[in-house]
């Protein structure tokens, strides 16, 4: 097997690789947060009951456009196509281009995830809130969304893991994230196997930490959620069993 351990160990913690991983994490976290914000606005727009359908149309269009085109196309568009469109008046450097494309793309997916979470909260909750005199917006903020979060977290965790890997696409616009750093080294040394193994290990490390954090977040939001009343004591459990079978 043509594997050079010396090369592997030399580059595993090489400064350019570490800096690349740092940029990957930075891009992922910032884009995911912005994506969640955009997604929230778009989701609320999508289910808006307002008499003016503008919000529904705008949100619908945004989601359709950014889910319907490849992320790579969006990245290249922001970096190369916008300057051409505006005759070099608007020229967006690598990292901002990456964040813009990644957030817009993520927002479209988050919108659907958040919408699913909202729909999962039983309609009775909104009715009850409204009958107590709350406005839709207050009800959404204080009653519906807090319950929706439980449903939103697992797919969002999924999205964040995807995001960590999607950032590798911005290598094409010369953003110096992890894959770019890897490519620079293998282009010069021709040691593809060692370098791509290094990159894979770094991505695995980051996604594993992300999964772990997702688990903690899920458990935090599990608190206070009661599945069904638990019967206490032997007699109570017998009664509960009888009632269920009956």
């Amino acid at each position, binding site marked *: 097997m043509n594997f050079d351990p010396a090369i592997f160990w030399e580059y595993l913690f090489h400064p350019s690789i570490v800096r690349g991983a740092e940029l990957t994490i930075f891009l992922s976290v910032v884009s995911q947060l912005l994506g969640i914000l955009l997604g929230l606005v778009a989701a609320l727009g999508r289910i808006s009951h307002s008499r003016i359908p503008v919000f529904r149309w705008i949100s619908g269009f945004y989601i359709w456009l950014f889910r319907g085109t490849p992320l790579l196309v969006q990245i290249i568009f922001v970096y*190369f196509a916008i300057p051409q469109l505006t005759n070099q008046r608007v020229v967006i450097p690598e990292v901002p281009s990456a964040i813009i494309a990644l957030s817009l793309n993520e927002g479209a997916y988050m919108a659907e995830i958040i919408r699913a979470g909202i729909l999962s909260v039983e309609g009775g909750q909104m009715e009850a809130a409204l009958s107590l005199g709350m406005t839709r917006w207050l009800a959404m903020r204080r009653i519906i969304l807090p319950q929706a979060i439980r449903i939103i977290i697992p797919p969002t965790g999924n999205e964040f893991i995807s995001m960590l890997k999607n950032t590798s696409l911005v290598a*094409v616009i010369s953003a110096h994230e992890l894959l770019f750093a890897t490519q620079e080294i293998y*282009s010069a040394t021709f040691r593809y196997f060692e370098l791509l193994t290094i990159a894979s290990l770094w991505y695995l490390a980051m996604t594993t930490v992300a999964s772990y954090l997702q688990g903690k977040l899920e458990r935090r939001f599990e608190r206070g959620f009661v599945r069904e009343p638990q019967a206490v004591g032997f007699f109570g459990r017998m009664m509960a069993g009888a009632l269920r079978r009956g």
Partner: protein
Amino acid sequence: MIACGGQQGGATPTTGSTGTSSPSPSAQSPSPSPTTTASSPAPQLKLINDGYLTVGTDASYPPMESVDPKTGQIVGADVDLANALAKAMGLKGAKMVNNSFDTIIAALQRGKFDIIMSSMNDTPERRQQVDFVDYMTASIGIVVPSDSNIKADSYKDLCGYTISVQRGTVELDELQKVNEQCPKKMTLKTFTQDTDAWQALVSGHVDVYTSDLPVTAFHIKENPSKFKLAGEPFSAGQNYGIAIPKNRQDLKDALAKALEQIRASGEYDRILKKWGVEGAALKE
């Protein structure tokens, strides 16, 4: 460590040769014929596509190699030279395979093509991976917008500027070397495709773009009065070479002979002139 170029008579038996005549050491066509219809009976070479020379190239490099938008075919000086060489070797022609430059040597080693003709400089580092048959000289050009104040006759004059360049090239190696001595560091933006590096200059992401002279001349010509060379082109120090996998002495000899033939017949000069790169012809 530079792999030696010259060779002696031992014929390397081609691996897994399909049964016909084994190549005899120096039995190839002796004198190049002056006609353009050169066709020396080549010994059976093991090729990926029988009867054709399969050539890897990164077609983001006009006028040497690029994709013709109308036909989708790869065209350029390297393409015409490859076809001429193939015919001189007694083959039907050359099949071009597009492969991005920074992985092209690995692809050759994996057997994706027989040779690489992609304006590739013959450097000591690359000689550790492949063998070369040099076929053109190479110079480097530095391009800036017409209204730029930057003057540069070498990379030393580019300290402090933002520069775009293709990844895996001698330009990038040279820039990185020079940058180490720069008091004010250059910002280097590297791209997988040379055309993306060019676009970075056009979009205004960088101050300077650098590449091989034929390519810079082509881009300047295509965008009249918008861009200019920042100074005199300078030699890259190494020629363009056809890259051949190691241990393919048979292929190397066949190509060297074919190259002599097309140079003697005038076909070589005709092709270079057609693409406007006659200034890069081999001198000796």
